[in-house]
């Protein structure tokens, strides 16, 4: 992390004439000049002004830069809601085998039966784990899964002649992608209050139930790490008013093999394969956000879907009621592939043990911290919990952000801060099951220690990293979003 090398930009390293990748000579006859093959009005006068560097420049640059990242492979990364669990190395090896990595998305089904079999089995597993009946592996991430499901809901209501259902109800503790997806699918997003326990406020929910109701989006366990105990009552109510229940599956890591969304009344859900089934997060992506739905919604799923006929697999495009597509080609197959490997490695007992240990680890950490940090929503949780620095801030002028920044000095990635919005000064902590008691103890000890440090010291943290407290206001006020050569 303290590597001070190579903080120059690639463009500043560039020197005309340096090269890295070289191309072979052209082996077909060059009978005509380029200007004969392409009309002059289409040709650029010069090549793009890309940087010019040698191979070793490139390698040193990006390798040195990489040391300025925290990542799961070097640091505990308890980023709430993101399920930063260990990413097995075997997946990386298998995913790069040519038999999978070098398949063209439009090659014929006959030539990729192994790929289709894997995807077909993945479809089956995801249905079984959610207790729902049909699946689309197409969405590229959780947010696109939400959007896809809402497109499905819109198509369904159109199909059954209930176009007036234009409202999507969303608890105030929900992730920002929920209301954003609702708006993009043409719905009106309506906020439902949380009660004092952090659960859906049933009274407020009831006020919004009428024939304008389309979908209720719920995260369960919710973003406070609490299981919505009344889920069955809630889903019954939604159904009684003709609405659909959508489960935001970002928190599936808490309930694998314990309870299934289909069994508690969800009609649709997305998975974040990159979270629950450990696709590496890639510094921001890729993800994969497949959705599962109840039988009556299956006709509206995007195309294609893998079907099995005897011992052959094929992509089925012939689905007349389908919403169409949300992206080109099949989906984020590389992440689905890793999710498949993970499910096969753990099996049914293993997946259940994942959730048990994720919940155990979170509760243990909560127990170690609850006397020093305010935990507004009780002293038990599922796979994550939300602490609040509200009192610390009032009493000692220590904000959630300061605690996060100071944690970095100790080699811990920070929890998610200032989310969910229903908790002031929120610190959302998700340890995951791939961490040991020793790691959790050391992390808890650190948080207890930080709490006792002077506010002025914390306000300047981190003290040991390559940079500290970037000026975000300046970045937004006069945005510099690209390097430009100095003029003159």
């Amino acid at each position, binding site marked *: 992390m303290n590597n001070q090398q190579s903080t120059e*930009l*690639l463009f500043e390293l560039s020197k005309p004439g*340096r090269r*890295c990748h070289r191309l072979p000579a*052209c082996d*077909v006859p060059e009978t005509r000049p380029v200007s004969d093959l392409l009309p002059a009005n289409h040709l650029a006068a010069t*090549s*793009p002004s*890309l940087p010019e*560097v040698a191979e070793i420049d490139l390698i040193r640059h990006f*390798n040195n830069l990489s040391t*300025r*990242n925290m*990542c*799961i492979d070097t640091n505990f990364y308890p980023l709430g809601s993101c399920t*930063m*669990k260990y*990413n*097995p190395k075997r997946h990386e090896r298998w995913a790069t085998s040519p*038999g*999978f990595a070098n*398949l*063209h*998305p439009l090659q014929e089904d006959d*030539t*990729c039966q*192994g790929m289709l079999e894997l995807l077909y089995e993945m479809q089956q597993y995801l249905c079984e784990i959610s207790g729902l009946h049909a699946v689309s592996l197409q969405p*590229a*991430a959780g947010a*696109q899964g939400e959007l896809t499901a809402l497109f499905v809901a*819109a198509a369904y209501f159109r199909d059954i002649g209930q176009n007036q259902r234009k409202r999507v109800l969303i608890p105030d503790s929900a992730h*920002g992608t929920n209301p*954003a997806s609702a708006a993009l699918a*043409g719905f009106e997003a309506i906020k439902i209050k949380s009660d004092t326990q952090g659960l859906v406020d049933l009274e407020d929910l009831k006020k919004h139930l009428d024939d304008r109701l389309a979908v209720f989006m719920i995260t369960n366990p919710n973003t406070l790490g609490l*299981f919505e105990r009344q*889920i069955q009552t809630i889903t019954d109510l939604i159904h009684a008013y003709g609405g659909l229940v959508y489960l935001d599956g970002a928190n599936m890591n808490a309930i694998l093999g*314990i*309870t299934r969304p289909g069994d508690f009344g969800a009609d649709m859900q997305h998975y974040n394969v990159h979270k629950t089934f450990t696709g590496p997060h890639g*510094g921001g*992506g*890729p993800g994969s956000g497949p959705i599962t739905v109840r039988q009556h919604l299956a006709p509206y799923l995007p195309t294609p879907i893998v079907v099995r006929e005897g011992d052959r697999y094929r992509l089925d495009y012939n689905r007349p009621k389908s*919403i169409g597509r*949300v*992206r*080109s080609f*099949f989906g984020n197959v590389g992440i689905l592939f890793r999710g498949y490997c993970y499910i096969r490695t753990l099996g*049914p007992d293993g*997946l259940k043990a994942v959730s048990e*240990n994720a*919940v*155990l680890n979170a509760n243990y950490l909560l127990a170690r911290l609850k006397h020093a940090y305010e935990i507004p929503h009780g002293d038990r949780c599922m796979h994550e919990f939300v602490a609040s620095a509200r009192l610390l801030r009032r009493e000692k002028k220590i904000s959630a952000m300061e605690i*996060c920044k100071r944690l970095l000095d100790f080699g811990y990635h920070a929890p998610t801060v200032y989310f969910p919005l229903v908790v002031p000064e929120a610190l959302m902590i998700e340890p995951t*099951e791939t961490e040991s008691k020793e790691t959790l103890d050391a992390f808890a000890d650190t948080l207890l220690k930080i709490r006792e440090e002077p506010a002025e010291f914390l306000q300047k943290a981190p003290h040991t*990293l*390559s*940079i500290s407290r970037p*000026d*975000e206001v300046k*970045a937004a006020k006069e945005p510099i979003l690209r*390097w430009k050569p100095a003029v003159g």
Partner: protein
Amino acid sequence: MAYLLNTADDQREMLARIGVQSIEELFAPIPASIRLNRLLDIPPALTEIELSARIQELAGRNQSTSEAVCFLGGGAYDHFIPAVVDAIVSRSEYYTAYTPYQAEASQGSLQAFYEYQTLICQLTDMEVSNASLYEGGSAVAEAALMALNIREGRREILVAESVHPEYRQVLATYMANLGVTIVTLPTPDGFLDPDTVTKAISDRTVGVIVQHPNFFGFLEEPEAVTQIAQKHGALSIISFDPISMGLLKRPGQYGADIAVAEGQCLGTPLGYGGPYLGIMACREEYVRKIPGRLVGETTDRNGKRCWVLTLQTREQHIRREKATSNICTNQGLFALRAAVYLTALGPQGLRETAELCLRKAHYAADQLTQLPGVRLQYQRPFFKEFTLSLPVNVEVLLVRLREQGYFAGLPVGRWYGPQLSQALTLAVTEKRTKAEIDGLAKAVEHQLAQAMPVMR
């Protein structure tokens, strides 16, 4: 159990500290009535050795592009990937990190994404690039959403029929609930005639979408279309091929408003369709309407140059239902691939790659159009991909060619209907050799001779 760490002793100590008797007790909030009282019905656990065998077995049932000679394109191309790309993206400092929310702990990713944004601006001559979208199809839809946002009140989008059919499907799906009319402009001559745009455009039009080169591989007239669009207050949205930027005019040079692309060709393996990379760049004036993450330069409290996520008030976690997009997780690692790839090639390498593609594609077209009854489907200039009209049904031909080890091209009639049932679209990258192209031409010649003895 794989990847789990707590020993029985650990668990006991932890439970004692929590103050419960069993792990089961922690699940008390989940009512018994909805508990799954059986194990999940999925196959039993496999060790690394066992699963490795299973994966190899499945891989063995795929015929990959490393075993066949690949002329397939249609948005995903068999370009060469220099080893440096894989070397860098396989560093776990990059691939096991997440979105750089904590700037101090993420300068590596942040600087790399800032470099990516700059490289995309250089590649396109556009002013602003975001840090990635999912892939080329949803990038087109996001561009349309962005245009709707910029030209509020206008609700009609014009799109050329020669745009990738899957991208148009994505566009239609995204627009289906927003009261937007999509007008598909016919391209009977293999490109969008600017006059067609002039006739269709009105003050209701929010944007015109063109793919250049288009799905058939042929060049469009993006400059003329851009001028027509802008004259009517509509936005010009261009889906471009990043490799073509080594030769062709760049969207920024002819004044495009939004440029989008599938970035797979920039160092990403074919991978059966994903993860890929959605590229989006726009004019500076639209920066507050662009979807997705943006990395910006700033200074830290000691005055040191550094990078942060910025202009986040556009995004879902702040603006919720009013956000410019719902995107959260993006394709960061594939933006890194593109950054390394573009840097490894440099201006010279990109130009040479583009020129090799151009020459080899033209050589292939020359060889194939010498065969009886084979001609270019449209008389238009092309870059690395082109569409032939053959004297036979191409579906049958493709099966035969596959048996001889060629993925010979895309039967575009599948997307465009029976009038193109004899059309075949071939992509030729810098990886294809003269011998491979000659081999394909021979194999096609042989098949045509068999199919049409009378024509000999």
